[in-house]
């Protein structure tokens, strides 16, 4: 980690000093433990605040949309795939970007770490793969690998798929025996069980839209839930409206979602919103042999037509 941070800072300082980029988008330490915040470094001095640890959970591609300046951006595997999406969807030009790729070892789930200690965690330090978390009463050491976020434990693209500089060495990509175990479990339920599963899942949703705002795919100038003429969906806490919001937002991410987990990282109510997009990821793979954001020369499957597109759902 320490060496990653040094390399990121050196690269960012050089890019800003040489005038190759106007801004470097990266992470800076948050104001509470186990948190980083997205940070736009515009001067070499500011670039020294850039950091890297096991809490870089937001997706920085989210901050690229329609920007005009030349940008350096830090990208782990999933961010890089969302950068590819952005390039393919004409939200940013490849020429504007200098991508500092960071091979990722997975980000941890801070809510899970908190359950390990009785009192509030007040510090978290990292050496290699070991994290030392402490409350005012206790201190324990844990292995990062054992407490990864759910999406990181299912990730098979830890290395950036597109970059100009790579920080450190590429990491080994995991091979999963059963990558869609979670989706299959829901598929095995009957219709009412499924309905109730998603009812329970959304039980705490306060419709703050943090999930949508954190998602790099959700860049529409006016989201369908915010339109008032026509008003596509009610704006209150009605269960049907909440479910409609999640169903449609997920569907808008079909063939585009990279399972980066930014939506879940942003949710204040700890709602497993990826339960919706995971199904779309599985179907994209099974129906179209498609994984989102892997190649800047290919458009997502729902954006193109091919004569052999699966169409047995049409009578």
């Amino acid at each position, binding site marked *: 980690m320490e060496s990653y941070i040094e390399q990121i800072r050196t690269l960012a300082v050089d890019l800003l000093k040489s005038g190759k980029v106007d801004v470097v988008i990266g992470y800076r330490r948050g104001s509470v433990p186990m948190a980083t915040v997205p940070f736009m470094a515009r001067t070499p001095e500011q670039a020294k605040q850039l950091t890297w640890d096991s809490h870089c959970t937001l997706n920085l591609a989210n901050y690229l949309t329609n920007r005009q300046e030349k940008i350096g951006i830090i990208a782990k595997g999933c961010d890089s795939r969302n950068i590819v999406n952005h390039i393919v969807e004409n939200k940013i030009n490849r020429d504007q970007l200098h991508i500092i790729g960071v091979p990722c070892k997975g980000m941890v789930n801070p809510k899970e770490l908190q359950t390990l200690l009785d009192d509030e965690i007040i510090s978290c330090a990292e050496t290699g793969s070991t994290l030392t978390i402490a409350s005012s009463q206790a201190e324990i050491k844990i292995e990062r690998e054992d407490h990864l976020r759910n999406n990181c434990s299912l990730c098979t693209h830890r290395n950036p798929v597109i970059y100009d500089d790579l920080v450190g060495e590429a990491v080994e990509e995991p091979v999963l025996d059963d990558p869609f175990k979670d989706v299959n479990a829901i598929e095995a339920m009957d*219709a009412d069980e499924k309905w109730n599963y998603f009812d329970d899942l959304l039980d705490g949703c306060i419709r703050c839209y943090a999930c949508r705002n954190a998602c790099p795919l959700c860049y529409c100038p006016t989201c369908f839930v915010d339109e008032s003429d026509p008003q596509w969906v009610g704006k209150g806490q009605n269960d*049907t409206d909440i479910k409609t919001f999640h169903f449609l937002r997920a569907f808008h991410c079909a063939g585009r979602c990279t399972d980066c987990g930014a939506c879940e990282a942003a949710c204040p109510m700890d709602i497993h919103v990826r339960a*919706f997009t995971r199904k779309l990821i599985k179907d994209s793979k099974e129906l179209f042999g498609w994984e989102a954001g892997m190649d800047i020369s290919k458009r997502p499957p*729902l954006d193109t037509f091919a004569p052999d597109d699966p169409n047995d759902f049409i009578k």
Partner: protein
Amino acid sequence: MMANLLEHMGMEKDRVQFSWISSAEATKFATVAREVAQSVEALGPNTKFVKGSD
């Protein structure tokens, strides 16, 4: 994929159906409409994604 996601969320499979019928295919239209009506009737009244029923 939309139909699959709806089904995944608990809508009954036959409640949402898709077909491609040209304006010249009157008999196909009638047949499909009858089939859709029959399969939806068999499922009974819908309560999902209906406001007020939750």
